[in-house]
């Protein structure tokens, strides 16, 4: 694989975390324009831990994700009573607030004669742990996809358990869910924290791949994209947002041949897609159809297996 392709795949992987983060909230019926805030918080927190405090990469990543989760926990309370558009605006305001705080956030220490640490709008240079530990780009890409698989496995596990059913109930009708006995506050805070941690993992990975982060990377467009991935890919399963990321970055890369008209072609393709698949590529109906197809073939496979076992 050439370097460019590795970089593209690594980017797809990292952006997938923020797409999945927005997806968790979409499941519970909330549209957040602010998941980039948790991506940013963890990027800074993990970068500070490895570059300034001398932590290793893994503890740094866990710390970053934990700080993002804690921030999400704090945000969950004021936004709990907000619904729909108000939640979207509330999360957007929060994310912009976080970004503007990083614009003025200075915390630097001298390491080997060099000032290291966040320097307001100048950004945060020297998050070099990965390069100093001789981890190659390919290895780092594998780390990204390993963590992404873990998050995906976690989300699939959730979908199959009671918790998944609760999230979907809340997503469809909060009040009706409450009437069934669901503790709305508890589960909404839980979803917000899970979403924050997932975005945080992506943020920590991002900071360490790029070695340099600055506040303007984490602007509202990142949040808009992270939402769009779920909507383009479909919300039937956690694969939807991933398909959205792959499609988005794949289209962006493959429309390079259109040079100046690239974004026009790209926008047109996204618009076409949403005209033909308004609920995304892998929407609930598609997932439902695939599942029932699967179930039709599965009994045949099972009887065959039991037939094979019979002679024992």
């Amino acid at each position, binding site marked *: 694989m050439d370097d460019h392709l590795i970089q593209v795949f690594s980017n797809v992987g990292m952006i997938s975390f923020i797409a999945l983060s927005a997806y968790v909230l979409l499941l519970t019926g909330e549209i957040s324009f602010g998941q980039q805030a948790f991506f940013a918080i963890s990027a800074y927190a993990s970068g500070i831990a490895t570059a300034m405090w001398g932590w290793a990469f893994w503890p740094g990543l866990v710390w970053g994700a934990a700080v993002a989760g804690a921030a999400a926990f704090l945000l969950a309370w004021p936004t709990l009573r907000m619904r729909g558009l108000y939640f979207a605006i509330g999360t957007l305001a929060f994310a912009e607030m976080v970004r503007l705080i990083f614009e003025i956030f200075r915390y630097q220490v001298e390491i080997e004669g060099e000032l290291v640490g966040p320097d307001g709008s100048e950004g945060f240079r020297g998050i070099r742990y990965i390069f100093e530990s001789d981890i190659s780009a390919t290895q780092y890409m594998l780390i990204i996809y390993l963590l992404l698989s873990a998050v995906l496995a976690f989300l699939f596990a959730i979908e199959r358990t009671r918790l998944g059913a*609760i999230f979907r109930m809340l997503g*469809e009708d909060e009040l*009706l869910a*409450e*009437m*069934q*006995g669901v503790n709305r506050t508890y589960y909404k805070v839980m979803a917000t924290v899970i979403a924050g941690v997932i975005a945080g993992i992506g943020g920590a990975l991002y900071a360490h791949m790029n070695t340099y982060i600055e506040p303007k990377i984490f602007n509202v467009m990142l949040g808009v994209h992270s939402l769009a991935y779920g909507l383009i890919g479909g919300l039937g399963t956690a694969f939807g947002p991933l398909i959205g990321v792959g499609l988005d970055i794949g289209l962006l890369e493959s429309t390079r041949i259109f040079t100046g008209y690239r974004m026009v072609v790209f926008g047109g393709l996204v618009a076409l897609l949403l005209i033909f698949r308004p609920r995304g590529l892998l929407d609930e109906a598609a997932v439902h159809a695939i599942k029932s197809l699967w179930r039709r073939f599965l009994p045949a496979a099972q009887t065959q297996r039991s037939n094979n076992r019979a002679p024992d």
Partner: protein
Amino acid sequence: MAVLEINDIVTAYGKIEALKGVSLSVAEGKITCLLGPNGAGKTTLMMTISGILKPQRGAIRFNGQDLAGKPARTVVGQGVALVPENRLVFPEMTVEENLKAGAYLRRDAGKVPSDIASVYERFPRLQERREQYAGTLSGGEQQMLAISRALMARPKLLLMDEPSLGLAPLIVEDIFRIVRELNNEGTTIFLVEQNAHMALQVAHHFYLIEQGKIVFDGSPDEMEEDEVIKRAYLGSKV
């Protein structure tokens, strides 16, 4: 014996009091019906009993337990299930998923499948459509599903908020047949209705609510003899 006793309940939306001191009681094993025009506070009362709205003051006693101001999960846990008005089902969940949602607080998960089976026995249409999204069902089927979902909680008291609303007359007959059936099987029912004619065929006791206050309390016979009710709710021909 009264299983549900409501005493001087006041519930307000901001400064506007929708319930201005409502008191009533629901007898065990009976069908009690609350009649009243739009905006009288019927749904507000149902929401207050089920813990979605918090009353400003007053007491709600269910089997001696005080439920006023308790969250919905406590109320459901005590055995009070609501069939809400209008927002009937989870539209993008299948029929079966909706039924399972109703059993959310049940600790005896092992008995849920047999309860689902008995729901299907009562409503064969729901079995035919068990894999279908609830939002694609007809209005009557959605009402049946909403009732079934409430039954999945194995309630001691079933609250029904205008189950006949917006349904065709034949289906309304069906719904009331089911209400009577459930009652015969031992479920206490507190019914909110605007359809006084249908309610007269099933209910054992009536209350009339107007502008947040109970203005009538009596048996079906007493109600049929009340001149004001006759004119306003039963039509002049009765």
